[in-house]
């Protein structure tokens, strides 16, 4: 046994991350100033406060500063993984056991200590949710066989088969750690309540209006956070949020502003604001309900995707809606993306838009709709980029005879119709993840997945997804990932639109925030500080 342990230790890759080093490095340039409440604007309200059950930035950004996670993406260096509640971890050479050491002295906001039992209860809720509890990311952990807490400072994840993305998935900002005793009482407790161990404590929440957190004086990272608190103003209107930034009612909008707003803000505030531009790990598209006609017909689905001129969309939508890059189901320029030359052979990605439209009309006629048909396009009532993207698609579809009625819904109703009940014909939906990871991006095309809003099923996709998830060789995994994407696109199971480009605007006095290519990670705000005006 001892020999075995020694062997494991010998081969194991040991990640020792001292997370205190990261803020120290960034703070070296300027002396951080304590105090002040960070004022932020946000484009949507949270459907619930439980990140395990939600997938919107609205939930994430509001509550992320209140919680800790096991490990996390380095706030200063995406996609590097560093510790949070865990200080170090070991991966067994066979890739089937992950052992984490929990940092001592972490306390929840109610005063109770954070131990391995809480981490186990948290991950049990995510991976093996009890009846009546939704877990959005359950399938991401299909490799997991058990989570164990042999002692208060050790958590062990045991796997049935190796998982190439597991460490990244454990660094998910969504997997916030809850105290076990509340979960035991009610697994849905955290939909409406907050008991975390993050740098900030919950202060107040007025639905649809504001959300506030205040400094946690007992935070486990010494001398953090710098801020006394943070306050979000909620408004779905881009113009309102931009006006809030311009007037100094808010100093940061963590998601994005369209280029035209950025230009106007820059023009007015000049050096007082900073714009951080990054490509973004978000793909906006359209799900077709494949449990009902005519979307069961591949010809109709192909026509709908052929009817959208994507390269023009990038040109039109980038200045007004931050949607820019044409790509497949994995972000262009990443190792998982389909090569440009291959992409152009797939329906909807042809160079010649007129030829695409002609083919779309031919397919519609062949499917029995020579004059097109009427359809209701449901959408989320958030202007950037949902509404603008929806309007573009409606215009494009008119050219092939599809008359779409646009129906924007409140965030909760949009999730309810799209994700939960399938009460839609076609619906604008996006996939936005905290990492360029095939597990995160492609799971939604597998049978029965919660994020498979189109409700289609293809065993080839399920098989490829399972195989790529286990493929530890990056080359082999890449091949499988490309093949999977091609099946989805060739069969038009889903209509990808455009990939996002993020323009994050904040006042220059908001210091020490580095925008990653997503708006989920780096939201704990523990290192952010406010300079004097």
């Amino acid at each position: 046994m001892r020999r075995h342990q020694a062997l494991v230790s010998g081969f194991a890759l040991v990640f020792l991350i001292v997370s205190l080093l990261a803020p120290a490095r960034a703070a070296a340039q300027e002396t951080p100033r304590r105090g002040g409440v960070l004022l932020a604007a946000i484009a949507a309200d949270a459907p619930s406060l439980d990140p395990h059950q939600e997938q919107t930035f609205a939930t994430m950004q509001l509550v992320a500063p209140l919680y800790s996670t096991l490990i996390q993406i380095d706030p200063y260096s995406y996609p590097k993984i560093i510790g949070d509640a865990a200080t170090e971890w070991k991966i067994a050479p066979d890739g089937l056991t992950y052992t984490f050491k929990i940092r001592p002295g972490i306390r929840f906001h109610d005063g109770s200590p954070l131990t391995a039992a809480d981490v186990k209860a948290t991950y049990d809720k995510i991976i093996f949710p009890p009846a009546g509890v939704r877990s959005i990311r359950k399938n991401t952990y299909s490799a997991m066989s058990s989570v164990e807490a042999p002692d208060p400072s050790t958590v062990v994840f045991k796997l049935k088969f190796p998982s190439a993305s597991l460490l990244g998935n454990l660094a998910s900002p969504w997997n916030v750690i809850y105290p076990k005793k509340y979960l035991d009482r009610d697994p849905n407790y955290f939909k409406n309540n907050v008991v975390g161990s993050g740098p900030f404590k919950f202060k107040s929440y007025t639905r649809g209006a504001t959300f506030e957190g205040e400094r946690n004086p007992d935070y486990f990272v010494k001398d953090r956070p710098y801020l006394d608190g943070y306050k979000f103003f909620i408004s779905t209107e881009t113009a309102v949020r931009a006006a809030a930034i311009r007037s100094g009612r808010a100093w940061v909008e963590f998601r994005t502003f369209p280029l035209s707003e950025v230009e106007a803000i820059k023009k007015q505030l000049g050096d007082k604001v900073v714009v951080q531009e990054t490509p973004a790990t978000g793909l906006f598209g359209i799900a077709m309900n494949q449990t009902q006609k005519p979307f069961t017909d591949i010809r109709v689905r192909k026509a709908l995707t052929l009817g959208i001129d994507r390269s023009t969309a990038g040109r039109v939508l980038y200045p007004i809606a931050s949607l820019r890059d044409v790509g497949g189901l994995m972000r262009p320029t990443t190792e998982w993306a389909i090569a440009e030359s291959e992409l152009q052979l797939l329906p909807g990605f042809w160079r010649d838009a007129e030829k695409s439209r002609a083919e779309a009309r031919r397919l519609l006629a062949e499917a029995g709709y020579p004059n097109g048909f009427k359809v209701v396009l449901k959408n989320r009532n958030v202007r950037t980029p949902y509404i603008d993207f929806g309007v573009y698609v409606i215009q494009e579809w008119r050219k092939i005879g599809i008359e779409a009625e646009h129906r924007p819904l409140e965030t909760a109703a949009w999730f309810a119709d799209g994700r939960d009940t399938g009460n839609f014909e076609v619906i604008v939906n996006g996939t936005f993840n905290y990492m360029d990871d095939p597990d995160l991006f492609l799971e939604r095309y597998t049978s029965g997945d919660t994020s498979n809003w189109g409700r289609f099923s293809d065993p080839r996709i399920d098989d490829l997804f399972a195989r790529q998830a286990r493929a530890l060789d990056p080359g082999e995994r890449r091949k499988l990932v490309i093949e999977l994407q091609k099946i989805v696109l060739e069969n038009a199971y889903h209509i990808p639109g455009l990939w996002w480009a993020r323009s994050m605007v904040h006042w220059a006095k908001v210091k020490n925030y580095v925008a990653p290519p997503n708006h989920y990670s780096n939201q704990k705000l523990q290192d952010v500080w406010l300079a004097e005006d």
Partner: protein
Amino acid sequence: MATSIELAHASASATLAPKPSVTEVVARFVRTKPLGAAGGVIILGMLFLAVFAQMLAPYDPYVGDYGLQFSRPSAEHWFGTDEFGRDVMSRIMYGARIALFVGFTASLIGCTIGALLGVISAYWGGRVDLLLERLMDILLAFPQLILALAIASILGPAVQNVVIAISIPVIPRVARVVRSAALSVKENVYVEAVQALGATRRRVILQHIIPNVAAPYIIMLTAQLGAAILAEAALSYLGLGAAEPTPSWGLMLSGSAPSYAEKAPWIALFPGIAISLGVFGFNLFGDSLRDALDPKLKG
């Protein structure tokens, strides 16, 4: 002798004067109420645009020319183009349809239901009156737009829901006015006479009361039209009315328009002018019509 004959002739011609023709009525209206007539011209103009939008609009209001995003007013695009390169003038022309449709249907529904409730309330009196009036009191407690907002947010954004949302707050206002008119009509001797002759309630209401409360009904109808157009614009502006890309004036004014106020002010300017002009037209016409129809205001 000759004088008395002439007088008798004059009085006879006065009593037997033929009913003035429509042209004469219109001519007199124009002469006596020039502002009202101007309002009428604006309404006719809107109606013309709405009916013939398909022929008059130079471009498709739904499909933009992507090469011409945010282009200034020019010979090709008189009112410029919006963020999708759509022709603002064509969208305003089609927008007249929505404005008039919502304006007419909402005020017609609201005024008709209100008038019926007012007449019922006045004629039946007693408990029916008490109950209906308290119900109207509850509705009147909310400002018109706030009530419309609440209803629209429950029903969700769609043109037909906007009609419902706008028409409901109109009901109590019309019911009150019509009730008071009906109460005075009810007390007239001829009503008592037909009741004494055994006329049914239905006959009394339909043939004797309703025709006599038509004037306040028509006045309220025209007065509410302008308000309804404005309410539609307000609801669309707040995201509770028609949904993009429907060319609704209020919607054109909201959405992205405020974001582009500096870069492309014409996107918001022209729909704003259209709303003002439409509401102005209906208000002018409604005011003059009230003056013309209300016997108390006749000099």
